[in-house]
């Protein structure tokens, strides 16, 4: 549907530009395209990006025209969609999934005047490719702390998507902080091999609860695990946006991806002509990672503890990956007081000591 609309609008735009001539073109708004991996209605990752897009659209009004294509698979399709966006007059393209990297860089080399922004990526092969990411592991540290305090069975379930550094980093951060407040906890990780498959995620949640987990975390985008948790009476955390409405009794809080400040800032720079490729990784201090209101079920002292952790990350006095920490195999990773550098985190391919199970290849 959306792709057809894009085709139609781009064809219309071309026709319009041809009839109105160059004078009208000078007044055309800055066109900003967004490439989404899932549907904006997922209430997770894509929803968060789309909310930020809407905020930016509102902020700039007529000066900017935003549009998006949803459900774009990673791979050749993404390259086709981005090329189409570029040809239809986009001045700026935000691609919001890790796997778009190679396609985005290939398209960027062909369209040097278009600003490309790639979320959670690592490839920068053209001067017009900028990378942005959020330090979600800071959020995971906070929910890990709450989970460690709240679990009765000492078993925490974690629904993961794909074994990429971003996800592994989140698992480690949650585990380290749950373990810190409750040394008896164990963490069960289930890989769903999908970012968005409600049935699969629901089945994963069922399996974890069946194994005795009484608190669930997810790094997948649908709200299905929360529905299951609500039905089965397990506690859970939302992902990417406030998911309280799906599980009002058991939704403790959610890590919210707040991309709006970044989008507004970057689009403004493009309007001003000051946009330059960058590589930013923001988190709690920049309000790019925020939290849904805490559920009343979380005892006051645990809320205070979580808030204190948030504040210490905000003012920079604490880093969630601070030594001493060992790798899963027992080898030393960080010495006492040592803090993980960003490069290691972005390439993280190992569990920290204490997590059982292997990371699939």
């Amino acid at each position, binding site marked *: *549907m959306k792709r057809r609309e894009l085709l139609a609008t781009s064809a219309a735009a071309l026709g319009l530009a041809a009839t109105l001539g160059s004078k009208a073109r000078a007044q055309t708004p800055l066109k900003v395209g967004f490439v989404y991996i899932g549907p904006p209605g997922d209430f997770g990752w894509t929803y968060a990006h789309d909310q930020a897009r809407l905020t930016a659209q509102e902020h700039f009004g007529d000066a900017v025209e935003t549009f998006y294509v949803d459900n774009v698979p990673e791979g050749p399709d993404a390259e086709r969609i981005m090329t189409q966006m570029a040809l239809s007059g986009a001045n700026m393209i935000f691609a919001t999934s890790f796997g778009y990297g190679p396609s985005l860089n290939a398209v960027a080399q062909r369209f040097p005047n278009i600003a490309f922004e790639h979320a959670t990526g690592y490839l920068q092969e053209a001067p017009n490719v900028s990378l942005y990411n959020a330090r979600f592991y800071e959020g995971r540290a906070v929910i890990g702390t709450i989970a460690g305090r709240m679990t009765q069975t000492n078993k925490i379930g974690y629904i993961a998507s794909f074994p990429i550094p971003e996800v592994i980093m989140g698992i480690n951060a949650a585990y380290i902080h749950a373990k810190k407040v409750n040394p008896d906890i164990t963490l069960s990780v289930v890989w769903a*091999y999908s970012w968005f498959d409600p049935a*699969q995620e629901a089945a994963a949640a069922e399996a974890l609860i069946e194994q005795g987990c009484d608190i669930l975390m997810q790094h997948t985008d649908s709200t299905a695990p929360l529905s299951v948790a609500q039905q089965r009476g397990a506690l859970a955390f939302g992902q990417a946006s406030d998911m309280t409405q799906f599980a009002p009794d058991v939704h403790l809080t959610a890590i919210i991806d707040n991309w709006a400040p970044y989008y507004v800032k970057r689009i403004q720079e493009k309007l001003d002509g000051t946009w330059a490729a960058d590589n930013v990784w923001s988190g709690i201090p920049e309000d790019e990672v925020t939290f849904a209101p805490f559920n009343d079920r979380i005892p006051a002292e645990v809320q205070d503890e979580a808030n204190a952790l948030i504040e210490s990350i905000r003012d920079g006095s604490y880093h969630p990956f601070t030594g001493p920490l060992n790798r899963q195999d027992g080898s030393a990773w960080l010495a006492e007081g040592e803090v993980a550098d960003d490069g290691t985190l972005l390439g993280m391919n190992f569990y920290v000591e204490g997590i059982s199970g292997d990371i699939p290849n």
Partner: protein
Amino acid sequence: MDFGSINPVVLIASLMVAATPILLAAIGELVVEKAGVLNLGVEGMMIVGAVSGFAAAVTTGSPILGMLAAIVAGAAVSLIFALLTQVLMANQVASGLALTLFGLGFSALLGQSYVGIVPPRTEKLNFGFLSDLPVVGRILFGHDILVYVSLFLVAAVWYWLNYTRGGRVLRAVGENHDSAHALGYKVKRVRILAILFGGACAGLGGAYLSLVRVPQWTEGMTAGAGWIALALVVFASWKPWRVLAGAYLFGGIMVLQLNLQAAGYRIPVEYLAMSPYIITILVLVVMSSNRTRRTLAAPGSLGRSFHAAG
């Protein structure tokens, strides 16, 4: 085999639940294909059923009314396909793909105001003391109504196709539509009815996802289940009981690998997780070759348009 901390009873019970949506959609598609029509729009019909069933259940407060609405909606969408392919003689493959695209977009539109709502709970059927029996209680008597409906449909379709006049006419139409026409059977009428039945089943399968399996409405929530159902029909070489076995095999692989992971077993997750999709792709490749299609006993007129004059 030692399942350790995994309870095999729970596992079997949950694989039946996991398999029900694809089983419902596949048994409907089987009848469609037996009539010689290839409808690739299963995914689209499923998701329209999912959203319609969800909306009706939320509005009326009754999951049963929701399921009925899904049946009607699935059939209604398939009517578009029937119109395109049987009346306007459009290409079946293209029409089916278009139906999927249409269904995905249309359901997203319909479902906008239903995102984030919790549907009324579908109760498990109460079999009294039977449900409390050890092992068989949970496996045989611990489900909601649609699990039994799906099993009943498999048996009914098998019986109907093999032992009734209507079923034999339908198969004749699917095997050789010209001969069937020469014998005086109404090829188009049979095919349109088969398409409607397929749509109704797919719609019901979709509603099972949104009302029981997940339960919530999210855009694109079928996430490929329709394609698996399509592959399943071929995988089962157009035999109802094999569709049942295949659906439970696919459902079983999915549930088993998730449970093994949750229990901390070291298994090659990536291969298990992708296996239903690999089988699907292989099956579709096999389908595309005429010779293998014959050896698999595909209906002779599958995918071909029928024109009375020809």
